[in-house]
């Protein structure tokens, strides 16, 4: 049984090696065939000028692409950064609670006013004499 498994594995390994060799060989073949195109012959009247210094090379091929990348990334994310956090169903609520349809000076039961001002302890009489306890309602989860 063990021998079978070893045989199977070696067959896979051989196939992998063959594949890698084929890919490598094909690549090198193409490069070798095309190598005359890379030969530096000077044509009449050409003027290649000075080569780039290491710093210039870095600037052109390193700094400028990175800067462009950052600029585009910034442009993409700028609107949502300006808008601030938004409600997403899977991330809960990020931000202060919102109250609609209530008077401006309503004191939330948490003890803080709507404007986030001073913390006010709920008066003990308020909680005991809840006139709304005779009312109705419904609750649900989702």
């Amino acid at each position, binding site marked *: 049984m063990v021998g079978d498994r070893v045989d199977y594995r070696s067959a896979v390994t051989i196939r992998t090696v063959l594949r890698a060799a084929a890919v490598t060989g094909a690549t090198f073949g193409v490069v070798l065939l095309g190598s005359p195109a890379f030969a530096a012959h000077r044509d009449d009247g050409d003027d290649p000028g000075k080569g780039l210094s290491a710093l210039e090379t870095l600037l052109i091929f390193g700094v400028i692409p990175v800067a462009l990348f950052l600029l585009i990334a910034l442009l993409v994310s700028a609107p949502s950064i300006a*808008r*601030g*956090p*938004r*409600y*997403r*169903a899977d991330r*809960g*609520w*990020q*931000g*202060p*609670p*919102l*109250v*609609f*349809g*209530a*008077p*401006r000076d*309503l*004191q*939330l*039961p*948490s*003890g803080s006013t*709507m*404007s*986030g001002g001073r913390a006010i302890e*709920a008066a003990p009489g*308020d*909680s005991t004499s*809840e*006139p*709304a*306890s*005779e*009312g*109705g*309602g*419904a*609750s*649900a*989860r*989702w």
Partner: protein
Amino acid sequence: MLDGEVLTPRQQDEINRAIDIAQRESGLSFTVYVGPPTGDPRAFARKLLAALPDPEQSAVVVVDPTQRRLEIVTGRVAARNLDDRACMLATASMTSAFAAGDLSGGIASGIVLLGEQARHPRSLHLDNP
């Protein structure tokens, strides 16, 4: 009104409009609280209702997106026209919208639904507006 960043101004307008419509329709005043309540949501909704200027004629909707809980409580007088069955209907409508990720739309349609359910014939000597 808090300048909340979490709901866009358009979404907040949607909710405010729905509250206006429901109040005009029913004569009750509706208050919506969106956010994590302190303590038990039902008790919180009750306290919020008690803190309103006219708790008898009011209904409070507390939406807790973090715990995914919804509470609707009604005042004593409001409960006559807006019974628990109507509130259940509104919660069903709202939670199905919330489950689909539409918070403001669910709140707005639920409030309008509450207003329609609470519609009753006007008696001019009782309903002051």
